[in-house]
C-alpha cells in the first residue's frame, strides 16, 4: 500500500526565488516595519521544514486531529453525467470541513515554534477565521479575527463559532467592509504587534514568504491525490481541477502535478454574474498586473490602479486579487484559468448533491462546474481529479435563496 503519511516539504522545484519572485510576480510590497518579521518567518519556515521534530508533529496532528489524508473518491454517478471519470479529493471531510485546516495547523505550530503567543487572521465568509480559531484553541494561542462588517452580518453563525472557540472577532468598518478590507486591517494591526503576534494569512497570497508558506502547508492535497491516483488507476490523471479565489486549495492540489507535463491543470475563477458584466471575481481572466496586499500579481483595478470590488455568490472566492504563483502558472501556460458563473456553479452544486449525496461548498462547486466542461472536452476515457475543497453546510442559506427552498414564513429577509 502506498504510504500516505503526510509529508511536509518545501517545493523548491516550483519556486519562488530567494526574494519570493515567480518571474515578475510575488515579492514584498509592504512597509519596511514588517520586513524584519517576514525575514524571521522565512528563516523559521526553512528551519521548521528541515526539522523532523516539527514535521513529525505536524504529521501527527494532521492524522489524528484533522483526519488526513483525505479520501480520493470515485464519483461514479457524477461521472456518468459528466461523460468522463471524476475522482473527488474529499477535503470536505477534514476537521472544520475544508482544506483550510492544513494551513492553519501548519502556521499555528510554526507560530508556537517562533515563540509567539498570538495569531491574527482575516476572513471573508468566516471559514478561515473559524479554522484559525480552531487551531488557536487546539494549540493554546490567543486569536483575533478581522472580518468585514458586511460579512459579520451575512455570516453571523460563523461569528458565533469563532467566539465559542475563544477568538475575538473585530468587525471591519473601513473601505468596502469585506474581505480585502479585513486584510488591510489585519496588516495595519500586525505592524504594531509583530513582536509577539503572527499574521496567520488565509490564502496563498500576501508578501513573501506567505504564498510559498501557505502552498507548502497545503501541498499535501496534491501529494496525496497523486499517490492515490497512481494506486487506484496505475497512472496519473489527465486533468486536475480546482477553484481559485486567493488560491490556496488550488495551489495545494496543483503543486505535486506541476512537473507532470501530461497532467492538465485547470483553475476556475468566480465569474459572478458573468465576467462580461463586470460583476465577478475572475482576477486572472479579466484583471491586470499590479500590486495588492504585499505582492505583484493579477488584480481587479481601474485605470488609476484603485482596487475594484469583486462579486461572487461564493464568499470564499470573492476577492479582487490572486496568489502570485497562479499568475506565474498562467503566464507560463502551465495551468489554464477560466471563469465559472454563479449560475453554472449552483447548477453543479445541485448536480453533485443529487448524484452523489455530497453537498459541496459553493466555492468547490465552481471546480465541479469547470470539470464538467473539461470532461466534455477530454472525452470518456479521461480521468479528472477535482478538488472538493470544502463542504456546503455553511451555504444552506445561499442555496435556500437560489433554489427557493424555504416555505414562505421562514423565507423573510434578515438571515
Amino acid at each position, binding site marked *: 500500500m502506498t504510504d500516505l503519511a503526510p509529508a511536509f516539504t518545501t517545493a523548491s522545484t516550483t519556486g519562488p526565488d530567494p526574494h519570493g519572485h515567480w518571474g515578475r510576480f510575488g515579492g514584498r510590497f509592504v512597509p519596511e516595519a514588517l520586513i524584519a518579521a517576514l525575514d524571521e518567518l522565512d528563516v523559521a519556515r526553512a528551519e521548521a521544514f528541515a526539522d523532523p521534530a516539527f514535521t513529525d508533529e505536524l504529521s501527527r496532528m494532521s492524522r489524528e486531529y484533522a483526519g488526513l489524508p483525505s479520501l480520493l473518491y470515485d464519483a461514479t454517478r457524477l461521472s456518468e453525467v459528466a461523460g468522463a471519470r471524476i475522482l473527488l479529493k474529499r477535503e470536505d471531510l477534514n476537521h472544520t470541513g475544508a482544506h483550510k485546516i492544513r494551513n492553519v495547523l501548519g502556521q499555528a505550530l510554526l507560530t508556537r515554534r517562533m515563540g509567539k503567543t498570538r495569531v491574527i487572521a482575516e476572513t471573508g465568509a468566516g471559514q478561515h477565521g473559524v479554522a484559525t480559531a480552531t487551531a488557536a484553541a487546539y494549540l493554546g494561542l490567543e486569536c483575533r479575527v478581522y472580518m468585514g462588517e458586511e460579512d459579520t452580518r451575512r455570516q453571523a453563525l460563523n461569528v458565533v463559532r469563532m467566539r465559542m472557540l475563544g477568538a475575538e472577532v473585530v468587525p471591519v468598518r473601513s473601505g468596502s467592509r469585506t474581505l480585502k478590507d479585513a486584510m488591510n486591517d489585519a*496588516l495595519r494591526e500586525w505592524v*504594531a504587534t509583530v*513582536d509577539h503576534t503572527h499574521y496567520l494569512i488565509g490564502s496563498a497570497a500576501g508578501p513573501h514568504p506567505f504564498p510559498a508558506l501557505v502552498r507548502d502547508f497545503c501541498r499535501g492535497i496534491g501529494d496525496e491525490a497523486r499517490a492515490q491516483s497512481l494506486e487506484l488507476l496505475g497512472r496519473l490523471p489527465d486533468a486536475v481541477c480546482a477553484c481559485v479565489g486567493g488560491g490556496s486549495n488550488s495551489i495545494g492540489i496543483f503543486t505535486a502535478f506541476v512537473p507532470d507535463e501530461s497532467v492538465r491543470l485547470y483553475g476556475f475563477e468566480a465569474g459572478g454574474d458573468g465576467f462580461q458584466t463586470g460583476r465577478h471575481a475572475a482576477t486572472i481572466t479579466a484583471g491586470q498586473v499590479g500590486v495588492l496586499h504585499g505582492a505583484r500579481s493579477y488584480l481587479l483595478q481601474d485605470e488609476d490602479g484603485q482596487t475594484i470590488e469583486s462579486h461572487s455568490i461564493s464568499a470564499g472566492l470573492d476577492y479582487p486579487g490572486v496568489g502570485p504563483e497562479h499568475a506565474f502558472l498562467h503566464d507560463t501556460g502551465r495551468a489554464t484559468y477560466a471563469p465559472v458563473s454563479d449560475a453554472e456553479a449552483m447548477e453543479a452544486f445541485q448536480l453533485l448533491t443529487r448524484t452523489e449525496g455530497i453537498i459541496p461548498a459553493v466555492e468547490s462547486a465552481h471546480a465541479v462546474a469547470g470539470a464538467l466542461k473539461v470532461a466534455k472536452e477530454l472525452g470518456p476515457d479521461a480521468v479528472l481529479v477535482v478538488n472538493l475543497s470544502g463542504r456546503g453546510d455553511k451555504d444552506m442559506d445561499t442555496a435556500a435563496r437560489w433554489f427557493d427552498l424555504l416555505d414562505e414564513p421562514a423565507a423573510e429577509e434578515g438571515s
Partner: protein
Amino acid sequence: MSERIIQPSAPGVGATFAKAKEEGRSVLIGYLPAGFPSYDGAISAFRAMVDAGVDIVEVGLPYSDPTMDGPTIQAAADQALRGGIRTKDVLRTVEAVASFGIPALVMTYWNPIERYGVERFAHDLASAGGAGLITPDLIPEEAGEWIAASDATGLDRVFLVALSSTDERLRITADACRGFVYAASVMGVTGARAQTSKGAPDLIDRVREVTDLPIGVGLGVSNGDQAAEVAGYADAVIVGSAFVRRILDAPDEAAAGVGELARDLAAGVRRRVL
C-alpha cells in the same frame, strides 16, 4: 544621459535642508491627500501651510487600500476618491503647489504608480515641478524601475526605515534614498499620538551611522511641543494626520485650521528641545 526637468522656480529638497541647518532649526514637512477636502480645498490648504512656515509638502495620492494609514488618513483618502480625484489631478495639484516656491513630493502607495507607468509618472511628475516620491510600501529591493526612472529625471526618492530595521537594512535603504531618509518612528499606522516615540532618537542615531543624508521623522506628531521635541534629534519633522484631523473637524475652515496648526508646528521646529 540624464534628463533633468525640474522647474527652476522651486528650490530642491537638499537646498531646503541646507538652509534650515544654517538657521539652526529643523525642516517642517506637511502632508495632505490631494483632493481633500476637495481639489481646490487641498490646494488652498497647502497654500496656508506654506504661508505659515511649512518648508516642504507631501501631496498624498489617495488609494483604495492604504494599509499603512490609520482611520484619519483613511477617511480623507476615501473622501477624495469619492470626490473623483484621479492620478492626473494629483499631478495638477503638485504643479499648483510647486508654484508656491517650495519642494513638493508625492507620497504614494506603489500600485497607482505602476498602473500609470513608472517612467511616464516620473516624467510627468518632473514636468509638473515635483521634487520626488515617498513610497511607504516600496522597499529598495523591489524598486529597480523607479530607481532608474528617478535617476533619469533627477527626482528625489524617499524610502522609509523603521524601528525594526536591522543595521544592514538601514544601510541598504539609506543608500537607495535621495533627498532625505524617512524614519517611521513608531511601529504602527499613521495617526496623532499623545506621546511621541521613545524609540525614535535611538533609530536616528543608528541611521546617522550609515548615511549623511538628512533624516525626517514621521508618525504621531500633532502639536508644536511635540515638534520641538522631535526637532531635537531629527532634521525634519513630518506631520500628516494632525492636518487631516483639523480639516475633518472643521471642513468649512480648512485653510484657517491648517494654517493655525502649521504656525504652531513651525514655531516648534525653531525651538528645539535638545
